[in-house]
């Protein structure tokens, strides 16, 4: 049978079946099982109303259970068994095998890099775009153009960026934009300005922001010592502070390294094969896609800010920067957290971009691609399932947070 006809039939059977199921089961309930007639009419109506929600819910619950809830349990079971030994229980052997593989730790390290860089950059660019486009007439056009990459598949975006990163031998014309720009730098003053001073400034800005965030987290602890008040989440605060100190030290080291690095001017670079840095070239693809998402949501949040607060600030003589950082930003903090976690979820599952652009070579492996490798190339279901469980564990804080918020809202 031709797939198109099969597809059409499936739509008819699927949709017709669903509607038929709902209609007939309701009829059965109202006419046959608990008819609203005769001596027990009142009791029957009540009973029917107890059963009916489950009739409406059944297909969705069945599909959700089978396609999402059951696999979580089954994957957990598979990760504790060995396929080659006929599914015998092997305890944590798969995990210890996985933890001893350098490729896994490479994937973990890269995933952590992605987790820091992509949500931060996307949210920052999105906030910038939202704030800028809100003030101008052609803002909605600009927004829809920045939003457009959302519609492009990860694979399509990979092709687009492979063209940008393309490399030709030295004596041929460069058709990748990045190399064409790179070859403009020859080590003169311009090169120093753009390739040394600018990155150093960006790194210093980054270090400054991280230090500030760390300080915000630590401050309540200091205050509580002096005043004897309580500061909640002390371990979390200390953890964040330690992480920010680490990041600040890291970026200061990078500043020194950048200053003394000698760059291979005039030679076309194979961008995707430069270890460590190629991760960032892959991240650019996802940042390009996700910025539009962040922008749309943050722009709605910015518009939701009550105008009185801004007017009051202007009357009090605040400048635009102060208005943005002290009035607007605190009011949309909740939305920023939502955007951040949503992009974090996308990043944790990132697969297509790495699969299409490098397939994990040159130290660009990520967890989802590592898992795909294990499952479908080396056919090692145990280790593959174990790495899937690692992804699940990384996702679960967000899961718990979302459920907690949803329940709070329902009350």
């Amino acid at each position, binding site marked *: 049978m031709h797939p198109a006809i099969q597809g059409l039939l499936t739509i008819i059977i699927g949709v017709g079946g669903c509607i038929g199921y709902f209609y007939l089961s309701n009829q059965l309930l109202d006419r046959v099982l608990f008819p609203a007639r005769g001596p027990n009419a009142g009791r029957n109506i009540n009973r029917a109303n107890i059963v009916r929600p489950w009739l409406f819910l059944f297909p969705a619950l069945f599909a959700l259970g089978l*396609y999402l809830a059951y696999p979580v349990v089954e994957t957990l079971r598979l990760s504790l068994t060995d396929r080659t030994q006929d599914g015998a229980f092997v305890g944590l052997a798969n995990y210890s095998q996985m933890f001893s593989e350098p490729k896994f730790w490479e994937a973990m390290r890269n995933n952590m890099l992605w987790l820091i860089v992509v949500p931060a950059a996307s949210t920052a660019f999105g906030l910038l775009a939202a704030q800028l486009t809100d003030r*101008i007439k052609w803002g909605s056009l600009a927004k829809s153009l920045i*939003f457009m990459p959302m*519609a492009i598949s*990860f694979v399509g975006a990979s*092709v687009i960026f492979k063209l940008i990163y393309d490399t030709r031998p030295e004596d041929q014309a460069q058709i990748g934009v990045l190399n064409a720009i790179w070859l403009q730098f020859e080590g003169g003053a311009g090169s120093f300005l753009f390739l040394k001073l600018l990155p150093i400034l960006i790194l210093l800005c980054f270090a400054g922001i991280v230090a500030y965030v760390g300080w915000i987290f630590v401050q309540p602890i200091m205050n509580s010592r002096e005043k004897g008040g309580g500061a909640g989440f002390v371990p979390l605060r200390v953890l964040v502070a330690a992480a920010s100190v680490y990041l600040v030290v890291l970026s200061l080291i990078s500043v020194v390294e950048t200053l003394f690095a000698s760059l291979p001017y005039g030679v076309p670079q194979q961008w995707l094969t430069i270890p460590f840095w190629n991760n960032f070239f892959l991240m650019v693809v996802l940042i390009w896609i996700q910025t539009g998402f962040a922008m749309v949501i943050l722009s709605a949040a910015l518009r939701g800010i009550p105008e009185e607060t801004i007017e009051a600030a202007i009357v009090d003589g605040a400048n635009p920067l102060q208005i943005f950082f002290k009035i607007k930003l605190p009011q949309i903090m909740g939305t920023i957290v939502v955007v951040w976690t949503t992009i974090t979820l996308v990043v944790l599952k990132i697969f297509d971009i790495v699969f299409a652009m490098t397939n994990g070579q040159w130290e660009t492996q990520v967890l989802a691609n590592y898992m795909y490798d294990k499952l479908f190339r080396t056919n090692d279901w145990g280790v593959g399932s174990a790495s899937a469980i690692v992804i699940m564990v990384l996702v679960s804080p967000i899961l718990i947070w979302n459920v907690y918020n949803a329940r709070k809202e329902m009350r």
Partner: protein
Amino acid sequence: MDNIAGTKSSLTWAVHISVALLVALWLFPTVGLFVSSFRTADQISSSGWWASIFPTEQNVVLRAADPEDNRVADGDGFVVSGNIFDDSDHGTQTDIRAWGTSSRDVAAYEPGETADLGEGESLTLMADGGYEWRGDDDQISGRGQRVFVSITAPPDFTLENYRQVLLSGDATDSMAKAFFNTLTVTIPATIIPIVVAAFAAYALAWMDFPGRALLIACVVGLLVVPLQLALIPLLRLHLGIGIGKGYLGVWLAHTGFGLPLAVYLLRNYMVGLPRDIIENARVDGATEFQIFTKIILPLSFPALASFAIFQFLWTWNDLLVAKVFLIDATGQTTVMTAQIVELLGTRGGNWEILATAAFVSIAVPLAVFFAMQKYLVRGLLAGSVK
């Protein structure tokens, strides 16, 4: 917004410029792909796409006309004359910048100069392509003299790539089949979850029963479960119950993976519908089924449209689910994303094919995006901001 107190910001022009820069930066990659898909392989490899609206310099190999038919006696020798661009696809407007007769030095002569080919044989080539090739009976015979020409080719765009990718039927390049496969995957996988989710969302929004709050919390939790976890157990299940790899499997998988978002979005929307309408209908004796089909569904159209767009974009752009649940060893059921990844491997340097194939695959989502952007934005806001 900052202008309300009556002070027009003096930085307005800076805002305009930075937005323009940002938009240009975000559009640049896509435009590059778009322009490249209309260029020939020669053009793509000889210059960057940003230079495509300017004339490019190319080296081409041409031949003088066939001596057997075209030579004329002139004194004791023969001469062949004509325009070097006749019978070539470069047109006659192109300007010759330099030329040569040997592959070792393709720019040996200026236009208008005469090349000495030895033993009295000579060739003169003018800037407009006119040439005169002189020699004796022996020299002016066989095939026409080879000439290497550096020309400035005017900008030129072609639809040939699209013909190759869409209509040629070529086994590796043709996307036509993959296009229809993608369509076959997408449409049922978009429609079926909507129907299933709409009923469930109604029950969760407007029916009272014990455990409702718990179920909603479960849906919110399932929203973030990575589908990577589902691959192996479900593939085993599909193989076990005889569905195997194929369209049915991928439709079911997309339905399952799309349901949490569908239920969540639709329920959030339905909860906001006015209570009076539904209670009036109940008082008037409408059954729950009637309330759902006659009142709730028509009123929920915006939410249904939002989810439909999400699911459409997601299934159209998906690679992983299709690779696991659909594409078997024969490769007959490949989808566009999978074929593009394959092309990246096999035809990594053939940008004209790659760019065109990629553009064919992103054209439909882009059209949907620009047509239905309002609903997409509304859905995003309902899904993540409250």
